[in-house]
């Protein structure tokens, strides 16, 4: 690992050799392949358009990174995206003013997030099971709300917000993503709360015995997750201009892949938003490249699934190999072995 005493070029070289350096290399390779396929690939407008296609998933991925670093998981966010969009669309359809409908949708996100958080943080159930139940139940509620219809009459201002550029070529969702990314980065790396997120992720019991209010941190994270998911759901509906019961179904695969490929350990306690950002860029460029190669949506999901498994398998194999090498040649460097991820 890199220490702060080393000089800047050394730190940069060290970073290049890390997982994030690997991601950067991978991203460059993908960009080269894609621009070879399509001439105008690397223009700003094309990249912005690309980003927009995945902006909702990316926003949620930032939040899920916090949760996975904290040693938990949230599988319910895709269903929650659908539920908030469904709530808004159904209320607006019933004649509720658009502002109130959006507010209600955000409240639904907050409540469902807090509901998840209650079971995980206060009752102490495994987050995997709670959010799996959430995944089914929240999607079920969308079906109750929207049934098998399609609601295509959404508030006009919301559609504009989702579809038209706000500043220059950048639409609202993109600006929101970068705002969240910067705020999230600062909170995670530099604030006391951010340190607690890591500490609990490394060892929940040790954190509790050290006087950390584990419940509060987890409760805040899950509530925030519900809120962010509901914002993302509204943006998604706004961008598509329509809402169905299956809106945002299956998004959890892409979102969790974005986070884990970004170097966030599924076991909690390590990872940065910088890595997550790089992996978001990789995923959306890979998806786009596959689209250019006329691959079907299901096949694309299959490739992302493979990527997800590899993003955990490869570091595991590498660290196992390093530990074995170290044992064989007597180069016991526990720090490096422990932090090779």
């Amino acid at each position, binding site marked *: 690992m890199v220490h702060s005493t080393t000089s800047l070029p050394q730190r940069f070289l060290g970073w290049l050799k890390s997982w994030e350096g690997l991601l950067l290399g991978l991203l460059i390779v993908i960009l080269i392949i894609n621009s070879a396929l399509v001439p105008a690939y690397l223009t700003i407008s094309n990249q912005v358009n690309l980003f927009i296609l995945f902006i909702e998933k990316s926003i949620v991925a930032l939040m899920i990174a916090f949760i996975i670093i904290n040693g938990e*998981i949230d599988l319910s966010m895709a269903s929650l995206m659908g539920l908030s969009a469904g709530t808004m669309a159904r209320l607006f359809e019933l004649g509720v003013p658009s502002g109130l409908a959006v507010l209600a949708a955000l409240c639904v996100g907050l409540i469902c997030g807090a509901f998840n958080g209650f*079971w995980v943080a206060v*009752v*102490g*159930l*495994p987050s*995997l*099971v*709670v959010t*799996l*139940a*959430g*995944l*089914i*139940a*929240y*999607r*079920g*509620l969308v*079906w*109750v709300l929207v*049934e*098998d219809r399609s609601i295509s009459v959404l508030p006009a201002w919301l559609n504009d917000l989702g579809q038209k550029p706000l500043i220059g070529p950048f639409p609202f969702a993109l600006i929101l993503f970068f705002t969240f990314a910067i705020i999230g980065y600062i909170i995670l790396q530099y604030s006391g709360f951010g340190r607690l997120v890591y500490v609990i992720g490394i060892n929940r019991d040790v954190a509790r015995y050290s006087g950390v209010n584990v419940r509060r941190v987890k409760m805040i994270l899950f509530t925030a997750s519900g809120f962010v998911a509901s914002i993302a759901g509204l943006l998604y509906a706004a961008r598509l201009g329509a809402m169905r019961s299956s809106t945002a179904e*299956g998004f*959890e*695969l892409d979102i*969790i892949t974005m986070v*884990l490929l970004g170097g966030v350990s*599924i*076991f909690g306690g390590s990872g940065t938003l910088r890595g997550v950002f790089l992996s978001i860029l990789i995923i959306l460029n890979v998806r786009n490249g596959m689209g250019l190669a006329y691959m*079907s949506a*299901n*096949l*694309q*999901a*299959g*490739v*992302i*699934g*493979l*990527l*997800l*498994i590899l993003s*955990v*398998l490869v570091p*595991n*194999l590498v660290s*196992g190999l390093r530990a074995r090498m170290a044992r064989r040649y007597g180069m016991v460097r526990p720090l490096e072995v422990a932090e090779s991820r």
Partner: protein
Amino acid sequence: MLTSLRRSIRPEQIRELILVLLIVALVLFFGTQIEGYYSSRTFIRISTSIAILAVVAVGETLVFLTRNYDISVGSIVGLTAFFVGTQLNHYQGIPPIAALLMAVGLGAIMGAFNGVLVAYGRVPAIIVTLGTMAMYRAMLVEYPGIKIVQMHLLPGWAQEFSRVNIIQVGDFELRLIVGIALAVVIIFQLVLTYLPYGRRLYAIGSNPEAARIAGFPYQRIVFIAFVLSGTLAGLAGFMFMGRFGNLTVGAALGMEMQAIAAVVVGGTSTMGGVGSAFGTFLGAALIGLLDQSLLRWPIISEFWRDAILGLLILLAVASDRAIVDRLRTLWARSELQLRPSMATVRQEESVHGS
């Protein structure tokens, strides 16, 4: 009186009793609500849909016992059903046993792929199976050939497969599919109770670290659990093909959620080490019953099904934490007072369940 009751009944059995009562209550309730509910047709419809779910869920139970999860089973069921169905559409001459072996073998291979990654690659099961869920579904969609399996193109035995009875008393018919499912439940209940492999599943789930230190072949046991889960999903895929006949690429979509619900509602702990095949069967029966009955209940729309399913899982897990855990402590404590010398052994048993 109370102490003798405590000695003869375990908390898990109380839970199973409650499930049975709940199922009976639901049957009585829907009987008053739905016209012609107590008919042979309704029984066949519900029992066959429970059968397929139960086979998948028993496999899922094995994986759950080791403190792992398998959410790729829905895709495995879909892929095997679709693959075998397509083969039968193309080649009418495939004998039934070859088709069955094909389905089970394909399921086993997919389960083995999951198992290798989880047990030997040390990738968390939820990540592996989230990935393979998408991958297997992609293989299904990309599978070259026709995109729809059609009933009338299947060979005669496959068309008749779901209509074969093993017992028929008057109007009451027990389908072969249901018989297979019951056999699977009984076999795996025996395996879990009496075979060393079954006991090791509980040991690993109760405390993976201790099991590893005690010298249990941890990786092999987990690997085999995933292979068995895949195999049973393959068998369920075969039954699925026989029951529905007409298949699209969306076959068995979301079945993993129902299977997990059946496992959890049936009393298997999400922390591993507690659960039984019989409990899972009751869970599957409850979910299959609700699923099929809500479809025909005019009062609320069928769209409530998934919302209820999710709530049921949460309730089961929460009640497990709130009631069964407390009962278990109560049991353990009463044992302590009764026979101090036996207490530690008994406590161990009551924690691990059977």
